[in-house]
């Protein structure tokens, strides 16, 4: 680690990953669910798998838990190849997408189930169960059956049950899918809190990008069985490596053009006939005339009534205004027909809004505001 406050084992070449996917492929018949995936996950990480439905997130979890075997490649857990270790012999616990609580057992017995499989010490089991119920604030419901409690409580039982055995690795498959927005947010923080307290490595599956950004130390963005990018939430947001990732995470303006190197990592992007090129900076080397996209987050685009002193500025007119309470997003149509979104914070009351529909405006951004993407 670089210093005590930053947690970044993935940047430390000395660190050994807890989980290693090495060229893992999983096929169901002819269908490729996971395609040559290589990925490291480290101890104490809160790792999020993010991707659209059907991209193979659950399949990855099931391979970690031991319910599916990879068709090709190797999965290591703590340095050990786990291909042939059955699920009941893995120090991995999973919180199922459907919770999978045992309907015939009380909340208490559900939580105790895993402990009873490995120990006969009644007092130790009772103590651990009480501890887990307290952690998930379920003490009052210990005697109830799963169908006698609410959805949110059920989800906490599932969490308590999977944490009870203090696994090395906890897998959470869309754990908050069934909750409404407010409870969901509260539970996200609760999860982070629990993860910090227990020091367990969490791998969470979600198709909600905001959730992934909130809880995760790193995020893997997946598409059709492949990992497109693995990085911290900030990096994913600020420096996506492809238009897919940029588009998947948050709102983005994608402007297609051709690059013209200008020396020192600076580029001119010719984006439309007869228009001045945009200026952009990139660490990536692009050749003369290479097709690329400029990805611009709306909040990095300024909007003014008069031509600003910025390197990139284009004129257009307001096509649409999306009022989001704290923010407003202006859709500005350029003379070329392209639409650029610009976002401003609403520090003024609505009555004093700066721009209205069809107002002529200028949108502008700095040379370093956007990211150049070659794919």
């Amino acid at each position, binding site marked *: 680690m670089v210093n005590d406050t930053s947690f970044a084992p993935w940047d430390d070449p000395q660190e050994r990953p807890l989980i290693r996917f090495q060229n893992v492929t999983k096929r169901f018949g002819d269908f490729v669910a996971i395609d040559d995936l290589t990925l490291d996950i480290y101890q104490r990480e809160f790792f999020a798998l993010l991707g659209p439905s059907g991209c193979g997130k659950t399949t990855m979890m099931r391979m970690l838990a031991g319910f599916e075997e990879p068709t090709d490649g190797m999965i290591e857990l703590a340095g050990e190849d786990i291909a042939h270790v059955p699920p009941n012999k893995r120090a991995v616990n999973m919180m199922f997408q459907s919770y999978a609580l045992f309907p015939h057992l009380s909340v208490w017995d559900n939580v105790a*189930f895993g402990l009873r499989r490995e120990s006969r010490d009644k007092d130790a089991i009772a103590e651990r169960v009480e501890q887990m119920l307290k952690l998930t604030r379920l003490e009052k419901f210990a005697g109830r059956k799963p169908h006698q409690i609410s959805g949110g409580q059920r989800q906490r039982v599932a969490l308590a049950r999977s944490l009870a055995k203090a696994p090395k690795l906890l897998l959470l498959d869309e754990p908050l899918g069934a909750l409404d927005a407010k409870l969901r947010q509260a539970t996200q923080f609760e999860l982070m809190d629990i993860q910090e307290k227990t020091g367990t490595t969490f791998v969470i599956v979600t198709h909600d990008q905001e959730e992934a950004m909130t809880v995760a130390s790193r995020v893997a963005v997946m598409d059709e069985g492949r990992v497109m990018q693995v990085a911290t939430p900030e990096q994913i947001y600020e420096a996506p490596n492809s238009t897919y990732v940029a588009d998947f995470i948050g709102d983005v303006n994608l402007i297609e053009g051709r690059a013209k190197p200008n020396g020192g990592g600076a580029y001119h992007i010719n984006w439309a006939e007869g228009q001045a090129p945009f200026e952009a900076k990139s660490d990536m080397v692009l050749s003369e005339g290479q097709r690329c996209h400029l990805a611009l987050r709306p909040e990095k685009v300024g909007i003014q009534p008069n031509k600003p002193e910025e390197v990139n500025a284009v004129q257009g007119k307001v096509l649409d205004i999306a009022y989001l309470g704290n923010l407003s997003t202006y859709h500005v149509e350029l003379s070329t027909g392209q639409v650029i979104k610009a976002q401003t914070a609403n520090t003024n009351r609505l009555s004093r809004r700066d721009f209205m529909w069809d107002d002529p405006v200028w949108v502008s951004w700095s040379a370093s505001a956007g990211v150049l993407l070659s794919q």
Partner: protein
Amino acid sequence: MIRLSPFNVVSLTLGFAFLYIPMVILVIYSFNASKLVTVWAGFSTQWYGELLRNEAFLDAAWVTLRVAIVSSTIATVLGTMAAYTLVRGGKFFGRTLFSGMVYAPLVMPEVITGLSLLLLFIGIGLDRGILTIVLAHTTFSMCFVSVVVSSRLVTFDRSLEEAALDLGASPFEAFRFVTLPIIAPAVISGWLLAFTLSLDDLVIASFTSGPSATTLPMKIWSSVRLGVSPEINALSTILIGLVTIGVISASLATKRATLRQKLDAQVAARPT
């Protein structure tokens, strides 16, 4: 209350008359004082007393009970195992063939099942008696258990078993502590079905029993051929009574289970 139309009243009456008049007549004549079945000579319970002193009937009843309990228990164990493997075993080689074969005895004529079992027992030199009846009954009732249990298993949420495995249970423990308790009602009704089937089987028992073992249906059948006696009526009345009690208590138990679930759901809906 909905008032029934005259047509409905008539069809209801006719239907129930068809079903129950023979049994009602049988029950009434079991209390007949006369030895002649067709002549009513006043009320008496003497034939019930005779029955209790009739060693042959008591022996047959005892044989039947033992056969039914043992064979239905074995059939339940085997049938449940077969159902579990066929539903859960994935696509192993010959699975379709096996599921077909498990269900074949359901449609096989009893005479054929009985005859083939008889040939088998003679072939391997097994002396016919209680053991052979138990084996025969296990064979044919096992597939009924398997049908009942597998129809429950196909709707069983697989992830519950996976959750058990995930929490460190061995496959056997997952079955013992999760699957079995949840499918228990189906297993119990499978057992009851096998028990009833064994209790009233005449054909297969006749093929596979020996002189040392006579079941109650066989005994009734053979005595009726010498003429219907009031004793048989009394015996049949007792059987009807037992079955009635069984059916009523089973349906009461189901009703109470549903009621409890309803109450549970109400508790669940209560704000906490």
